[in-house]
């Protein structure tokens, strides 16, 4: 009965504020909306399930313009004016690095999507958690996927950001260790008018495969360019670029997208949390939205940790974050059920939407499974799993 009508206190007490510092403009712009939707979905599910500590959650969204200075200004407003308990959704590693000193000082929980190693370096007082593979695992996942496809020679086309760069060394090492040969590597800058030079240089050597470490805008332009220039090397890309809710295929057309490989953390599709997330935002099963799923996990875990610690003080509830996913107990994916279990004192662990991950003590995710996808006739098909 209490499910239909939330407890009285929910309406009376002031809500607990959660900040979302999303890249709504700038080069991260394509992912900002996805993040916001996911955060709203998670907040709604939690509030429908009675909120936490008898209070509702309120989401405050701020734009970091994918830019550290704007990010700091926006974070300052979230912390000092809106008094949020946590900041979620920090997409760019540079923004995360810039904001981190402030959140640490003010004892605010910071959950990020950026994968630069430095983010989790140092003593973070349990306040910084990364909801993203680090570059090493992702780089290795690509080399394993290529090995499985029998790729002998590969070249690398990498966008100049901390995240994309951090995947390159691990990829190279793992790929050459497995007997492959890297023909060439070219870095390029964000926001170039065209990528023709890079494409000529990399695809011109006709490697079996090209690892394109970039986001959707650059990937779209590069894939089109390679096709139009008459090249046939297979493209391997991040799931958040080539999968991205089908947007990549829409951009370049099915013919260009045909045969593009991409990988990302699963269990997309068989996670209860992920299904709940997709249902909440009204997307069909099988849609791939990595950043959204990560933000969903961030908000849910923040809420669970607050409930568990019975405190909105970041330093107090931050400790609970790893415990909630690392526990040796039955997995629960639906946030509402997790909340119920928590209130009932039943032991459980939260199995995330983005992946069924664990946390390492330093704040990194571990234990990730990657899905290996292939675009066929305009659809991403799961062709294997990589651990």
């Amino acid at each position, binding site marked *: 009965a209490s499910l239909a009508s939330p407890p009285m206190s929910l309406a009376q007490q002031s809500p607990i504020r959660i900040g979302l510092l999303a890249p*709504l*403009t700038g*080069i991260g*712009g*394509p992912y*900002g*909306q996805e993040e916001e939707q996911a955060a709203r979905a998670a907040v709604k599910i939690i509030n429908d399930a009675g909120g936490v500590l008898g209070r509702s959650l309120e989401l405050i969204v701020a734009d970091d313009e994918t830019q550290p200075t704007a990010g700091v200004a926006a974070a300052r407003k979230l912390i000092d004016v809106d008094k949020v308990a946590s900041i979620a959704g920090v997409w760019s590693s540079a923004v995360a690095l810039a904001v981190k000193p402030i959140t640490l000082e003010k004892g605010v929980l910071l959950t990020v999507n950026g994968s630069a190693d430095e983010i989790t370096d140092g003593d973070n007082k349990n306040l910084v958690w990364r909801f993203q593979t680090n570059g090493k695992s992702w780089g290795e996942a690509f080399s394993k996927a290529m090995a499985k496809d029998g790729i002998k020679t590969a070249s690398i086309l990498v966008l*100049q950001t901390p995240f994309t760069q951090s995947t390159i060394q691990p990829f190279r090492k793992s790929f050459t260790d497995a007997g492959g040969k890297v023909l060439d590597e*070219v*870095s*390029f*800058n964000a*926001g*170039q*008018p*065209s*990528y*023709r*030079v*890079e494409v*000529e*240089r990399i695809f011109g050597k006709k490697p079996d495969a090209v690892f394109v470490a970039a986001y*959707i*805008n650059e990937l*779209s*332009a590069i894939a*089109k*360019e390679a*096709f*139009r*220039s*008459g090249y046939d090397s297979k493209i391997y890309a991040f799931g958040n670029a080539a999968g991205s809710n089908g*947007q990549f295929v*829409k*951009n*370049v*057309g099915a*013919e*260009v997208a045909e045969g593009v490989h991409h990988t990302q953390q699963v269990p997309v599709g068989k996670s209860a949390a992920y299904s709940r997330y997709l249902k909440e935002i009204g997307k069909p099963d099988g849609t791939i939205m990595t950043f959204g799923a990560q933000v969903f996990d961030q908000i849910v875990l923040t809420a669970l940790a607050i409930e568990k610690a019975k405190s909105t003080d970041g330093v107090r509830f931050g400790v609970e974050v790893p415990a909630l996913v690392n526990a040796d107990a039955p997995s629960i994916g639906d946030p509402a059920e997790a909340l119920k279990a928590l209130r009932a004192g039943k032991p459980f662990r939260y199995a995330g939407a983005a992946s069924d991950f664990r946390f390492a003590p330093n704040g990194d995710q571990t234990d990730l499974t990657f899905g290996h996808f292939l675009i066929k006739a305009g659809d991403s098909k799961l062709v294997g799993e990589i651990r």
Partner: protein
Amino acid sequence: MGQLLVNGIVAGLLLALPALALSLTFSVLRFANYAVGSYLSCGAYLVYIGNVVLGMPLWLAASAGAALFAVIAVGIDWLAYRPLRDRGGVTLLVASMGVAIALENVIRFFAGNLPRAYNVPVARPMRFGDIRLNHEQLTILVAVFAALAVVWIIFRFTRLGRMMRAVADNPDLAAVRGISRSRVVAYVWLIAGMLTTLSGVLVGLDANVEPQMGWTYLLPVFTAAILGGIANPMAAVAGALTLGLAEELATLVMPVHYRMIVTFLVMVALLLVRPWGLFGTRWVTK
């Protein structure tokens, strides 16, 4: 090498149209329109609406979009630049920064951040011996040359062109010679609006249609226009070609990501030898 040249020329031509629009407005209004990149994006999106949302063929959508945006450009001038007309080039430059920010976010408001593409099939390239030329490149080649020829004839040989240059040179004297400045300014924006829309379409074909597309072109466009000699529209085209070729050939001697440094050095060297731009002439002010 041959391929590099072809690619360089196409890259340069792609820059040529917005550079031409920039130097056209500069040469008449004496201010560098920082919003030229946003104009390009706006035009591209208008054409996107015609092409994808309303289902028109691209050439039709491009023509309609160009006409519509030309009018919008006149409107923007009327609202934002006209009240500042006599306040010096840099005041207008700063105003155009404001216009750029505003326009880019109008796009973002309606269309979001995700990249989009026109409804044209992507095709494999044509081959001429070793040299590959793709369909977009061919479109770019033809469209840009046609546009350049038209603008050149207008500017150099017609009454309208003389009107523009007279106002650019000496607005007061132009007025006593019977030329209405506001009419000329409107014409200039009409032409600039069409040019930027056209270039928006070509850039969209070449890469994606996205809110930042114009922004990414801004720096090269300014460089090209100034390199050529900003007060001389046709020189801007030469500047654009030089820039395109320099970037392409730079990769022979430098890591790809440093090609801009070569371009920069070439530019400085050229400007030191020819301080008025490659093909520009000294602007006489006394």
